[in-house]
């Protein structure tokens, strides 16, 4: 077993270090009690104190969570590095996970639910569009039984929501119950960008007409 320090650059399969000294982070995997890279990129050692960024479902990699005090090894693709020029900067795809706050656009509404396309997860712009559902009972915390989808969302609205479940084969389940969640930008029936006036109303500045929404409290 080598006790040398991990390399700075890694190629998939490359040995990074023993599991006894590091715990696996994004871009790595465990094989025969050793950490190997699973991506091309730069190797980072994160000391346990600092929490790591968008966790890549560690549970799937380590059957039993490794002792907390171990530093975490991760591999970050070159394209994702800050150093890369913004033009080429192509974020590596991530998946929405329970607890993530996502930005999505409303595609379709029914009395039961709003169907949305998830566009941004955390601070990562997604390449693919993942479909999500905001069910009528997950729109707001109070007076759940009085909620009407049509008075909360309209197709085209941009909504900030939280992932509450992996959902079914096609949809992630989302919630907007918290105050800071809900519609962050919407266009009126007349086609003008509206401004929030209350937690449940937006106004078309041109026509002065009000429209009902579950409005996100500005952060």
């Amino acid at each position, binding site marked *: 077993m080598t006790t040398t320090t991990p390399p700075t650059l890694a190629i*998939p399969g490359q040995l990074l270090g023993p599991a006894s000294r590091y715990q696996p982070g994004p871009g790595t995997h465990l094989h025969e009690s050793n950490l190997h890279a699973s991506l091309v990129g730069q190797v980072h050692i994160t000391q346990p104190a600092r929490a790591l960024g968008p966790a890549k479902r560690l549970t799937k990699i380590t059957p039993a969570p490794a002792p907390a005090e171990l530093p975490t090894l991760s591999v970050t693709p*070159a394209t994702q590095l800050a150093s890369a020029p913004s033009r080429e900067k192509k974020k590596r795809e991530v998946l929405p996970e329970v607890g993530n706050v996502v930005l999505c656009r409303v595609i379709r509404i029914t009395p039961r639910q709003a169907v949305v396309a998830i566009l941004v997860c955390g601070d990562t712009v997604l*390449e693919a569009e993942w*479909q999500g559902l905001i069910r009528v009972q997950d729109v707001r915390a109070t007076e759940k039984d009085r909620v009407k989808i049509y008075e909360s969302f309209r197709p085209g609205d941009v909504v900030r929501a939280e992932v509450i479940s992996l959902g079914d084969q096609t949809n992630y389940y989302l919630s907007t119950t918290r105050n800071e969640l809900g519609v962050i930008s919407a266009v009126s029936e007349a086609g003008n960008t509206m401004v929030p006036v209350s937690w449940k109303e937006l106004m078309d500045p041109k026509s002065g007409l009000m429209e009902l929404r579950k409005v996100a409290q500005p952060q």
Partner: protein
Amino acid sequence: MNDRRRINGPAGATLAPFFDDAAPQDLDTRSTRSRPPNATRKLLLKTGVTPSASGSAYLEIETSAKPGLSGLKLSCSVHGPRALPKSAPFSPHIVLSTHVKYAPFATQQRRGYLRDSSERDLGIHLETALRGAIIADRWPKSGVDIIVSIIEGDQDRETSKLQGDEVWDMMNTLSGCITVAAAALADAGIDCVDTVAGGVAALVQDADDGSAPSIAVDPIPSEHKRILAACCVAYLPTRDEVTNLWFRGDLPASDLDLYTSLVGHGIQASKNANRVLIDCLSGTVG
């Protein structure tokens, strides 16, 4: 039968040009292998050729000195991970789908637009080769498309008469597909346990004098009198695992170790390809 979605050629089928001064002695003056039997041809590999894709790569096998002998040219693009089609059932891991297609002008015989059996075979072999390398459970409910376009097949333009060569060409093509796809997957940032690469070894007979056949890696059919058998190996170097093995032809029953050593040579070839792959990938970082 007219394809209504394409522009069709003349109703009466057209003929590939028939060469008059195609000297019959062609068979004899066929090029003989200049490389040592355990040497592979020079491989050129480049990632990021398709910016609009999640990941992509281009592979070219250097054309040998002899003119008219075309080297393999492959372009591969990876799309995903992305949402599965609505119809698809729930999948706890990523769903791999591979497509291999010859360009119409890639080979001696003009290729049709619809995928034929050999293209489907290549696709299936490629899929199994890659499935063993990808860490699939990191991407639940998602799919990835891996598309390889064969811009030029590994084939000698002149040797139209040599039938059966197709099969051996496919071996080289597949090993190229595996290597180029591995590069594209890494470029797309899809987690893999290792870098998989392809390699081919063949049992060839070069002399007519009944002498024992020899093993050559990365064979070019036109450089050998006869190819008795060949295998294409997809191999993970750091794990020392074979994810896919494709064997064609028949071996003399006399020598039982022949098969093992053939595969062994295939792995050797794969390791050579892997070096190129690693250099290429290392170049993209730092």
